[in-house]
């Protein structure tokens, strides 16, 4: 079995062309990054607001856990069937998939941002206030930098979930590494299926390493030793 998977992974014909491994990996990454961006655009402002003001905490915690329970595949079918009549071309398949992935990516970012801001050392907050900083200044110059390790880990775990789940985009005919899983199963090419699964795991790993390097670069060295998990 391992030999046939390796044979599939190392076959040059599987690396060439529009349906090849590099092209599908890039497509997978493209869909995942757009979804992450969309999720962050929603989750970061809400997380910052709740963390900074302390308002709506109970609602947020409940919404986050409710979001985690949404079944992705079901939402994908509903979204695809509802949106298909209203959109032209590939967008009709891409938008439903992105919605599903973004919805999936919101909870980890939201809880990361909110928890990060909320757990900033009260002494640092008081000091900033004592120096006469406004609310915005305190948020951007003290709270966000202090919360960065947790914000980053929220983004990273969101990205992991999105990459793993982006395979379902293949169900509605989109590209990405999910193609190998769905097509492999339909055509009973289990080496292709297993190879695709390994590639998804590898892609997730590589992306996480890249993100961790970015995190190391942006987080203040003073926090790095303390905040890293």
């Amino acid at each position, binding site marked *: 079995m391992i030999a046939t998977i390796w044979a599939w992974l190392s076959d040059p014909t599987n690396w060439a062309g529009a349906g090849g491994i590099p092209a599908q990996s890039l497509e997978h990454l493209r869909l995942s990054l757009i979804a992450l961006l969309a999720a962050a655009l929603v989750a970061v402002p809400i997380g910052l607001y709740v963390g900074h003001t302390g308002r709506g905490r109970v609602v947020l915690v409940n919404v986050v856990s409710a979001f985690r329970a949404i079944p992705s595949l079901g939402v994908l079918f509903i979204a695809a069937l509802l949106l298909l009549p209203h959109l032209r071309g590939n967008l009709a398949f891409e938008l439903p998939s992105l919605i599903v992935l973004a919805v999936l990516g919101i909870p980890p970012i939201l809880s990361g941002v909110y928890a990060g801001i909320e757990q900033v050392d009260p002494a640092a907050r008081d000091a900033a206030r004592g120096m006469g900083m406004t609310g915005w200044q305190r948020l951007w110059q003290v709270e966000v930098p202090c919360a960065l390790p947790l914000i980053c880990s929220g983004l990273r775990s969101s990205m992991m979930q999105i990459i793993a789940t982006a395979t379902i985009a*293949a*169900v509605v*005919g989109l590209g990405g590494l999910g193609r190998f899983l769905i097509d492999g199963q339909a055509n009973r*090419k289990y080496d292709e299926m297993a190879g695709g699964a390994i590639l998804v795991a590898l892609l997730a790993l590589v992306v996480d390493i890249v993100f961790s390097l970015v995190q190391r670069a942006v987080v203040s060295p003073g926090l790095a030793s303390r905040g890293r998990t």
Partner: protein
Amino acid sequence: MTRRHSTTVVAALATALVLSACGGGGDPLQEDDAPATGGGGESALVIGSANFPENVLLAEIYAAALGDAGVEVTTNLNIGNREAYMAGLEDGSIDLIPEYTGNLTLFLNESAEATESEEVYAELQESLPENLTVLDMAAAEDKDSVVVTSETAEEFGLSTIADLKPHAPNMVLGGPPEWRDRFTGVPGLQEVYGLEFSEFKPLDAGSTLTVQALVNGQIDAGNIFSTDPAIAENEFVVLEDPEHLFAAQNVVPLIATDKVTPEIETALNEVSASLTTENLTEMMVKVQDTDPADVAREFVDGL
């Protein structure tokens, strides 16, 4: 009453199972070994069916027609896939089941090659073991087909798959993911008809997504089974298959040889003579919200 009961279950299971059992696919993956225990008295003819709505409807039609002919029948519907109900025919727990010529031939003889209706029927009769008999086949077929919208057909003057050739490079074909490698799919369309579509879009989840994508123009041609109610509902045009890429799948009664009587033969041949893809499709539309037994009764009364 067990018959009522099983037809309700059929309705619930319906859509998901359509793909697994009919059409050019061959052996479905699932090993649904519902035991085919026959009901009824010693002499009653037990009619079985596969586990998808169209086959259940056909079994109900056989049951109604045979009942009218004075044959004592019981039904044991929704048994499972071909592997399961063929075992039932072997051990005598069912005696009669509606079948499809192409797939049954392939089941009995893996090297079967015929694709045209009459030839497939001849090959089927050669492949059948002594203890099984097929009666006359119907004109009705449930098989893979390539369909386009009526607008597309009109615009390019399409009536057969061959007509697609000059337009295929500008068209997107949609179908189940297994069409990518299966000969009766993209490779066959290319080899037999020389069609080079600009893209093949694999669409999962039965025919629902394919139908929607076709209606909304995300794909220009799609693979749908020829008895799918969506064809009539959306006024799709089923393109003819002059080269017989897709093997014929005429509906045919498969019966245990020692159970055949002249009354049974006459009654079932009468059904087959009137069953067409068109009226079967119309009945499939009705089955969506009516008991298959009632739809079958109405059809048999009209014979």
